[in-house]
């Protein structure tokens, strides 16, 4: 892997500093991303001070942002260097001694590179941890394939008993992080540069945001795609529900809200939640449209906005897909 943020040994370089090779669009993405990351850094720094049961494991990413916490709690803020397998192995070992580890890096290095360590060093040991990823599907679009992670939620979804949170606004991050760390099961927090205009929060059950009346199609938007989804269906007979918690998916809420047509709008791999919707509605005739990030490697840079458009996840693309689905 390569990193563009400051390693711990160069603490003078702040993580908000964009790499010199980044395009202007990429630089904007970096600033947005660091705003989200700061919500995590500030809250995690406070949690480490409040709860001696917590520990933070890093692999250089964000290490400089946590230097104050590391100075205060040198035994519980552990930067292992650019070693993701060890980062997860250490988290497993910490958990086996009774600590509550939080593990943080870019999503592809956190979830994909060390997947077997997540499976074995946490789950198989009956140990648990909180993983906090940044970068999401294409926050760092200009960085290219190595820093894109549209499959992270699908990979975590291969495991049993995990909670996945996809906050839609930076102000949702503190409460989500606190409640997750206070628990004792494993969870993945997927932070992103993408954001709705305002925070919503809640307990993760589906929130009905737009009610188009009985029998209307139900669109479920996850995390930061709510505003775009609302704009897309503004003139269509579609109810809109939102959640920051795709796992465990609120199947009871879905059954209460859904009619015959269900539309999923997810900011990661398209179809990630199709199986849970299918299982939830197994006894009902229904049609499902699953929208999200495509599987094909585009080999294109640009900005997150460009990738939204290319994957049909901008308002125009969503509207087109939904309209086709509703008028077969």
């Amino acid at each position, binding site marked *: 892997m390569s990193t563009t943020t400051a390693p711990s040994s160069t603490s003078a370089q702040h993580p908000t500093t964009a790499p010199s090779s980044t395009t202007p669009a990429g630089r904007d993405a970096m600033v947005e991303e660091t705003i989200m990351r700061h919500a995590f850094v500030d809250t995690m720094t406070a949690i480490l001070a409040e709860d001696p049961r917590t*520990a933070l494991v890093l692999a250089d990413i964000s290490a400089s942002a946590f230097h104050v916490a590391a100075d205060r709690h040198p035994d519980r803020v*552990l930067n292992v260097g650019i070693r993701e*397998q060890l980062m997860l*192995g*250490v988290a*497993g*070992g910490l958990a086996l001694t009774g600590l509550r580890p939080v593990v943080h890096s870019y999503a592809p290095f956190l979830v994909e590179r060390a997947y077997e360590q997540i499976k074995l060093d946490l789950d*198989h*040991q009956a140990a648990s941890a909180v993983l906090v990823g940044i970068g999401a599907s294409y926050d760092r679009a200009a960085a290219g394939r190595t820093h894109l992670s549209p499959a992270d939620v699908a990979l975590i979804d291969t495991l049993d008993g995990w909670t996945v949170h996809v906050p839609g606004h930076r102000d949702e991050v503190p409460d989500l992080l606190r409640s997750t760390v206070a628990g004792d099961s494993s969870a993945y927090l997927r932070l992103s540069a993408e954001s709705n205009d305002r925070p919503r929060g809640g307990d993760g059950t589906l929130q009905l945001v737009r009610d188009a009346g009985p029998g209307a199609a139900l669109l479920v938007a996850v995390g930061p795609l709510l505003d775009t989804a609302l704009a897309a269906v503004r003139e269509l007979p579609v109810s809109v529900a939102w959640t920051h918690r795709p796992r465990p998916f609120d199947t009871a809420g879905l059954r209460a809200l859904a009619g015959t047509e269900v539309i999923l709008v997810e900011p990661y791999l398209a179809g990630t939640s199709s199986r849970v919707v299918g299982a939830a509605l197994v006894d009902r005739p229904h049609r499902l449209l699953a929208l999200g990030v495509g599987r094909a490697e585009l080999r294109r840079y640009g900005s997150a906005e460009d990738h939204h458009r290319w994957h049909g996840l901008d308002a125009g693309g969503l509207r087109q897909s939904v309209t086709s689905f509703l008028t077969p």
Partner: protein
Amino acid sequence: MTTTTARVGRLPTPVAPYFDRVRAGRAFDANVYSTVDVLWVLYDRVLRISPETVDEPDRDRFLLSKGHAVAGYYAVLAAKGFVPVDWLDDQGGPESRLGDHPDRVLVPGVEIGSGSLGHGLGLGVGTALGLRAQGLLTPRVYMLLGDAELDEGSNHEAIAYAGATGLGSLTAIVIDNASATHGWPGGIASRFTVNGWTADTVDGRDHEALHTALTRPHPDRPHVVVAVVNSEE
């Protein structure tokens, strides 16, 4: 060769009947026997752990990273009273708690589930860090792996980090039966010492030499014991 425990063929006498009960007439390769001496010395003379203290926070930890070395492991755990002797029958069967790789959830005294190579050192580093963070400075963490297992790159992440941070509570034991496909030119110990570990290379059947190496003080840096066994035995 000096040993403090009499032998039955290739096995320390106290372990032999339990080992044979696990074996149940099956023919095992030589590598199955290669770890029994180290395991016996650890559980008999080194580890501060007993069936009564398997959940004590202050206990020593033993992490079997080469999880396929189960026959001797289960035999030693039975000989020391961690698992009922009748569990040794039908090892690997549909109702057995003893798989071909150990599962910490199923077997009392087993600290980690292993089988996929290259996980024990990382878990051991995290265990040592977790104990230190909670002020538990007495327990020692022992991890056993094989020379071929060292092929896995994850080990080298752990070796470099543990050496750089001086994790003195760690002791790695590498059973060297020369089974790594491409070998370790320059020796196994050098992979550790170049990263700041101390090292002893000893005869893996010599119980006194193993005991001395496993109990050597190393307060400010991790220690590795390379236990050399004859791959043809």
